[in-house]
């Protein structure tokens, strides 16, 4: 098996090359088949890697070649498949394959079909590299690569200026985070003289002293900065909603299921480093919780179906970070898995709706689609129930695990977390009800055009819906008769940080109570959404109408973009203008031009001395000689 590991990323790369080079030659059918089949092949190989780990329990570590070697310092190009990356491989290739399949239907009318599949394959390649790398540098290649593909795909319809801007915004915000990650890697190399996980993590545990604590805090904070960029946390979250400019399958694959979870993967991977620094853990928990709440509040009033889902993603990522911050690594990663299922499902469902509605994304203009799109409705309903945390769907188990651990560490955070879960349930059902129930509010033409999507779209929906429903059973808690399969599976990965985290045992009665609270909260929000949007048939007001103050704030995303504009862009612009006008134009240009002008002007004056009079020349010569003599002989 070890010999075939390299094929997992190489197959999508081959797909990228074939589709990219043959995008104008090959037919759409061939491109779609190649693009999807390479991912399916990678998925099969990933399953076999997973099976091998399952049977031996040993991580697979393969070194292919020495990549960077300076003296004793050595960065090999090596892959590591352990319990953590094996699951990531399955998500990336599995969900990735479904989304490729979906894309063959969704993008079938697009001119850039070949280009799209080439980019999508390239993305999968980089994402696989990210999770397969056995050191931080290989991870960083994938890290940068997925950022690039995200940029390329957000700006896929680049002829629209807004879309191109959204792509640039995503790219720049990611770069800000990447800088933090990169500095952290340099620091790690500086301290440990290696970038390999196997070298660094055991050493971190042995470190002692106040000096070390500071260094570890610094490194972990910088790593976290990298994670905030990729995983869209405060303050670097505003790019993700804008990223919805890309094709919907891209939103599902990149901006819900895989790339945005890279930050969580990275922190889970480096869990020892984070566990060593309680300060960073606190910061992560607070930032995660704040992001979860802020994004949920914004999602409450959005009217673009994809924007609701985008803010929901930001919010759910916030939950994952909250889980990481309170030391519930398994819980956070559990949520990564279930979220990959139901959020991909929801995005693909939204895509199916948009497809049926002839590119209409405003939920105010939908309604009553339940009968027209029965499969889409049924699958999206399952996704919505899953994300809202209603048992026994998958989201309940993962979110509950995070909330239970949050309760252990801070009761305030727990309450806020439950409020966030309530908001989640409300805005998700709001979106579902507005889209699928009531009467149709769009144009006649759209109504006439409504149709269920082709099989290439509905099959992935159905598969993901099944996964969303049953996905939670991989980690059923003890009190519900489960065996914590995922926790046991991931135990080797988090073994080193286990002793560093304080664990208080929760009474089974408390645990039942906590579950009851979160389920109750979800149902209250569901009921409120039902009353408001089905019984009272409320429809969000048009953009021109006045909103109450809070709703207005939420609708305008709390003016965060404007705030950044004011705090960062405006001063930067002013600074650039200052540098351009004062430093460059006056300072540097003035100096250079001044030298030239000074030479010209002074020579105009000096030229007059050259009267051409021989007698005067000789006189000057004599004066000069006398002067030299005086100077040299010091008379």
């Amino acid at each position: 098996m070890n010999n075939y590991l390299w094929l997992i990323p190489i197959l999508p790369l081959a797909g990228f090359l074939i589709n990219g080079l043959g995008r104008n030659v090959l037919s759409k059918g061939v491109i779609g088949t190649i693009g999807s089949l390479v991912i399916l092949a990678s998925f099969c190989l990933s399953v076999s890697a997973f099976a091998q780990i399952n049977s031996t329990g040993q991580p697979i570590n393969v070194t292919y070649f020495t990549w960077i070697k300076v003296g004793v310092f050595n960065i090999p190009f090596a892959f590591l498949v352990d319990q953590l990356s094996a699951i990531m491989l399955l998500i990336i290739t599995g969900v990735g394959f479904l989304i490729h399949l979906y894309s063959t239907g969704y993008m079938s009318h697009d001119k850039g079909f070949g280009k799209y599949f080439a980019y999508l394959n390239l993305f999968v390649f980089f994402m696989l590299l990210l999770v397969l790398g056995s050191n931080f540098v290989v991870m960083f290649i994938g890290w940068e690569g997925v950022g690039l593909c995200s940029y390329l795909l957000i700006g896929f319809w680049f002829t629209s200026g807004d879309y191109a801007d959204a792509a640039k915004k995503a790219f720049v915000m990611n770069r800000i985070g990447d800088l933090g990650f990169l500095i952290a890697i340099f620091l790690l190399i500086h301290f440990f003289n290696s970038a390999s996980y196997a070298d660094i993590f055991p050493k971190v545990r042995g470190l002692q002293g106040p000096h070390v604590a500071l260094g570890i805090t610094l490194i972990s904070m910088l790593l976290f900065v990298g994670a905030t960029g990729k995983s869209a946390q405060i303050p670097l979250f505003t790019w993700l909603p804008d990223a919805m400019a890309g094709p919907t399958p891209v939103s599902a694959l990149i901006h819900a299921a895989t790339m945005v979870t890279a930050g969580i993967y990275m922190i889970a991977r480096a869990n020892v480093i984070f566990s060593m620094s309680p300060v960073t853990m606190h910061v992560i928990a607070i930032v995660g919780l704040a992001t979860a709440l802020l994004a949920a509040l914004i999602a409450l009033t959005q009217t673009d179906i994809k924007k609701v889902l985008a803010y929901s993603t930001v919010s759910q990522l916030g939950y994952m970070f909250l889980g990481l911050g309170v030391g519930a690594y398994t819980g956070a990663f559990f949520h990564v898995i279930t979220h990959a299922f139901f959020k991909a499902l929801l995005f693909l469902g939204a895509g199916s709706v948009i497809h049926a509605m002839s590119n209409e994304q405003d939920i105010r203009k939908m309604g009553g689609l339940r009968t027209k799109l029965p499969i889409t409705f049924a699958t999206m309903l399952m996704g919505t129930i899953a994300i809202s945390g209603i048992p026994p769907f998958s989201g309940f188990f993962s979110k509950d695990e995070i909330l239970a651990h949050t309760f252990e560490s801070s009761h305030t955070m727990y309450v806020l977390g439950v409020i966030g879960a309530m908001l989640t349930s409300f805005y998700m059902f709001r979106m579902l009800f507005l889209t699928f129930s009531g009467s149709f509010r769009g144009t006649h033409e759209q109504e006439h055009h409504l149709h269920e999507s082709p099989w290439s779209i509905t099959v992935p929906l159905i598969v993901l819906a099944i996964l969303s429903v049953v996905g939670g059973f991989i980690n059923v808690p003890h009190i519900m008769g489960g065996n914590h399969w995922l926790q046991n599976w991931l135990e080797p990965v988090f073994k080193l940080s286990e002793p560093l985290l304080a664990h208080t045992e929760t009474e089974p009665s408390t645990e039942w109570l906590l579950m009851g609270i979160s389920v109750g909260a979800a149902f209250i929000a569901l009921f409120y959404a039902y009353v408001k949007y089905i019984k009272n048939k409320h429809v969000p007001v048009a953009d021109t109408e006045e909103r109450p103050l809070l709703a207005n704030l939420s609708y305008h995303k709390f003016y965060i973009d404007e705030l950044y504009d004011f705090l960062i862009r405006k001063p930067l612009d002013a600074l650039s203008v200052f540098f351009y006008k004062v430093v460059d134009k006056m300072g540097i240009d003035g100096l250079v031009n001044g030298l030239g002008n000074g030479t010209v002007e002074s020579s105009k004056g000096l030229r007059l001395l050259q009267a051409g009079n021989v007698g005067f020349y000789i006189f000057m010569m004599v004066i000069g000689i006398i002067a030299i003599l005086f100077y040299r002989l010091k008379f």
Partner: protein
Amino acid sequence: MGNITQTIQAVPLNHYILFCAIIFAIGVTGVLIRRNAIVIFMSVELMLNAVNLLLAAFSVYKGDASGQVFVFFVMALAAAEVAVGLAIIVMIYRNTNSTDINVLNRLKW
């Protein structure tokens, strides 16, 4: 040879220096104040000869022949220079009908 040495040494070195300085100054003054190019040339010769005399005097007093070798060099170079300089002056005269250096203000840019 001995006689010449004695003859030269009959006059103290200071006198030579003073004399040469005077002749040199006369040469410099001539160069500076005269307007006729040929007279200026003659003044230059005067300066060169003042230096030559001084070289010869020092050579004798020091008992070192190299000073006299320099004299020969200066003479040879002066002769060459005069040949070239006079040729230029002759050409200038042919073109301008004058050797007045105040008229010769053509050495401008």
